[in-house]
């Protein structure tokens, strides 16, 4: 047992060192690395719902977009009148000082974590009574509705979009912005990982699994499933909101349906990544998101115009050949590596019977 722990320690510290060194090693790729961190966070939090709890949600994009708008709004609203900032035409120019910028984004991120979690609680209370496909379809509507609504609210820019505060001009180093957002997202990734890992060792995860495997039985055993379902979703929303907040600042421009409530892309990607890696596992979403991101960044520009066809093919391949994801596939091939003991005698006996 101790030996395994030591190995884990080496693995984790190796990854952390790699993560800390990455923006210096691959200076040109900072933005892609930031995306990678955010994608992993989204996949991991989706996995809590779709993988562990068995509630396939397309609604997590709602929290992501909400976080994005909230962070930007707070960051602007703390120092300037928000309505004038977003007013289309925008004749006036407001400039954040360095201190204002960082204070703003700090408070903004805090808000963007808490409010989506509360919203998740409220919506969850209303719709987590639905099961299976009904829940999936219902959440699909959430993201779309949010996009349309946000596109009509003047104070956050409506259809014009919302330009987030530019990085303070007083910092002359052009690399500073990239580094700032990278480390922010990396910190979020570590935080999320620790949290999910903690959940994996807790009774909470077992309850979520029980809900997935048979909700009625779980209820019959005296588990208040509704309470746990809502809590689970709130946890996801917390991290999704943060991820959205960081992305908003990084992209610099928020559009209601294409950037914030981007169900067509981010909303689908987070599901896809979790399934690709293997849902219901700790490392699956991490591996899935990483592979997906490499695939996307590496290949998409080579097949200009056909990338979505390639994505479609990828989805088909995943669903047909790796229905359990890469982790599931590995687990089937090398069960002993995953700590599953196989009684060779028994297995042989069964084979002979056939």
């Amino acid at each position, binding site marked *: 047992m101790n030996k395994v722990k030591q190995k884990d320690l080496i693995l984790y510290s190796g990854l952390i060192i790699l993560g800390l060194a990455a923006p210096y090693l691959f200076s040109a*790729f900072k*933005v892609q690395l930031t995306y990678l961190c955010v994608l992993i966070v989204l996949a991991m939090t989706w996995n809590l719902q779709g993988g562990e709890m068995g509630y396939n949600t397309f609604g997590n994009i709602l929290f992501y977009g909400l976080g994005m708008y909230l962070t930007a709004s707070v960051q602007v609203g703390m120092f300037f009148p928000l309505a004038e900032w977003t007013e289309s035409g925008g004749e006036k120019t407001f400039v954040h000082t360095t201190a204002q910028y960082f204070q703003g984004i700090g408070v903004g991120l805090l808000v963007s974590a808490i409010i989506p979690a509360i919203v998740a609680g409220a919506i969850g209370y209303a719709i987590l009574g639905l099961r299976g496909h009904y829940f999936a379809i219902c959440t699909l509507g959430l993201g779309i509705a949010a996009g349309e609504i946000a596109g009509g609210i003047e104070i956050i820019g*409506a259809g014009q979009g919302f*330009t987030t505060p*530019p990085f303070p001009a007083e910092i002359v180093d052009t690399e500073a912005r990239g580094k700032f957002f990278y480390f922010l997202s990396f910190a979020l990734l570590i935080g999320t990982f620790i949290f999910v890992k903690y959940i994996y060792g807790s009774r909470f995860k077992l309850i979520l699994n029980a809900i997935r495997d048979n909700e009625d039985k779980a209820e019959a055993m005296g588990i208040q499933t509704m309470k746990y379902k809502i809590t689970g979703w709130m946890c996801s929303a917390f991290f999704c909101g943060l991820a959205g907040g960081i992305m908003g600042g990084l*992209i610099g*421009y928020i559009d209601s349906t*294409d950037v914030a409530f981007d169900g067509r892309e981010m909303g689908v990607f987070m599901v896809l990544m979790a399934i690709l890696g293997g849902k219901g596992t700790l490392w699956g979403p991490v591996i899935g998101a990483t592979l997906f991101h490499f695939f996307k960044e590496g290949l998409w520009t080579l097949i*200009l115009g056909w*990338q979505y066809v390639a994505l479609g093919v990828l989805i088909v391949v995943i669903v047909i050949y790796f229905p359990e994801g890469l982790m599931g596939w590995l687990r089937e091939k090398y069960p002993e590596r995953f700590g599953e003991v196989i009684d060779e005698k028994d297995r042989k006996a069964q084979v002979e019977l056939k």
Partner: protein
Amino acid sequence: MNKLVKLFITSISAITLALVSFSSSFAKVEGDYIVLGSAISLTGKYSSNGVHTQNGYNMAVERINKMGGVEVQGKKYKFEIIYYDDESNPKRAAQLAERLIKQDGVHYMLGPYSSGLTKAIAPVTEKYKIPMVEANGASRSLFTKGYKYLFAVLSPANQYLEVAIDLAVEKNGGKGVRIAQAFEQDAFSQDVRLGILDAAKRTGSEIIIDDKLPKELNDMAATLAKVKATKPDVLVVSGHTKGALTAIRQISEMKVDVPMLAMTHCDAAKLSKQHGKKSEYALCASQWHKNLSYKDKFFGGGKKYARDFQKEFGYDPPYQSAESSAALLVFKDAFERANSFDRDAVRDALVDTEMQTFYGNIKFGPGGQNIAKPMILFQVRCKGDDCENRVVAPTKWASDKFYHPIPKWSERS
């Protein structure tokens, strides 16, 4: 477990090596080539206009290269463009701009298609001090952010249809008119809307319907039903290509009678070809029309450009292509005047641009917008089944008189 860890470490180091070796990218000027970068919408909702833009760029690159290229410090250079597909998505566009600059080493950018995407890319080019000449981002808010490296060869979006309201008021004997309007929820169309609001205030006109249309636009029957009931003097619709097509389709299906119909993107939507007589009398704002009398030595005039473009790509050039071609002429001019590849020297040369191209005069205002070129309006007119766009305003280039009011559907054959 041991094997897995080993495998993991090996693959990580392999990726690391690959990335590090790839990082040492090539630079802005490679041999005889000046490398420009552009993220273009080849897929997604702006794909048709994205392709018009790309064709415009390509046409100009080919022409300039063929006619001697760009001369800097006595040496001839050729243009080359690195394209990426931004999928009509601002998030992707910003990321690709970063990629073009940081990984492909691009030092000069050409704009994407649409205001929204330009809005997403401008902060990136500004951050790295990369001059960007863009031809398809017209939203006024682009020019009020104090961007120093952004240059647009086109007139701002709020000017698109202001003239149309003026025309309507004129036809109404100088009295204010009743306006019905429907705009897509995107940066460009919302800016056109602001222009109309300004014009309405100025002329004392009243806005009786002010609808928003969704982004993936293919139905506006609700708005049209209201128009039928309230009978406004002018109907204004803007929503890129899809907006123009949807409006004409449903207006003709529902037989909506309105004295004046003003739109954007009619030529990009090839309205006169696709809908023929149904689109007759539609009034359209345009940055350019082939009948205008501007000239330059690369493309000759508008008519010659249109012929060459038709030969090359098989369709009549919409203004999106023309303005995109003009962007390269601007770059060429700036490089030669700067006589250097220093980004700031090129930027300063761009500021001083004052030239005529086949597309129009170009001179940049303090915000980076083109202040030397007016918008024009054309009207779709048909002879038999053959429909054409005829310029009706401003009077200097008008080839036809503005036809008003539009005859009722019951009187149209």
